[in-house]
């Protein structure tokens, strides 16, 4: 089980801020493929990966990163702080 978090318009499109996902995906990209195939709202949220960022255990990384040992995955658009 892995915690999956969504922020900003990713959260709005999927409709929830957080969920627990049972997965054996090897990489973030594999997890994204699993989620996309679930329901249209996931497909809509993950339509364009270039518009998304991902963090594993609160560290920014990329979609090729392996998921082994990871407890928390977060998906969100590019940040707009400051």
């Amino acid at each position: 089980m892995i915690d999956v978090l969504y922020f900003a318009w990713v959260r709005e499109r999927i409709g929830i801020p957080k969920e627990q996902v049972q997965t054996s995906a090897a990489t973030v990209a594999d997890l994204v493929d699993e989620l996309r195939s679930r329901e249209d709202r996931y497909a809509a949220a993950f339509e364009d990966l270039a518009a998304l960022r991902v963090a594993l255990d609160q560290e920014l990384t990329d979609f090729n990163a392996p998921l082994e040992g990871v407890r928390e995955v977060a998906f969100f658009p590019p940040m707009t702080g400051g």
Partner: protein
Amino acid sequence: MTVRVQENPFDFGAEAQAFATGRTDAGAVVTFTGIVRDLVQSPLHEMMIEHYPGMTERALSGIEADARTRWDLRDVLIIHRHGILRPGDMIMMVATASPHRKDAFEAAEFLMDFLKSRAPFWKKERTGEGEEWVASKSEDEYALSRW
């Protein structure tokens, strides 16, 4: 070295004064403050700032630690708000103290460049025409390349 992420307003003047007061080790103090601007096209009702609790503090502390390895800094302060803000409200501030003005300036610019596109905050604007997420700017991403 202080990092604070908070929903409540902060008192910029008091923070700046406290940061600079009694400092005999660093002759140069730089502050940057980000303020909610009104919009020209359609008046801004409010700005909502979402963040990623936990990661935000980690990212800000990481950026601050990185700045301290690059410049001769005697102190650093980062405050960033989340929640609902209105035009004229202060969103965030950074402050740097160094013996050298160049270090104080560069470190403050570095912190701002990273805050803009590496700290997990997202801004949404609400105007009379509805709500819209603020898009990231390619110039903000580009600004990181100089460091």
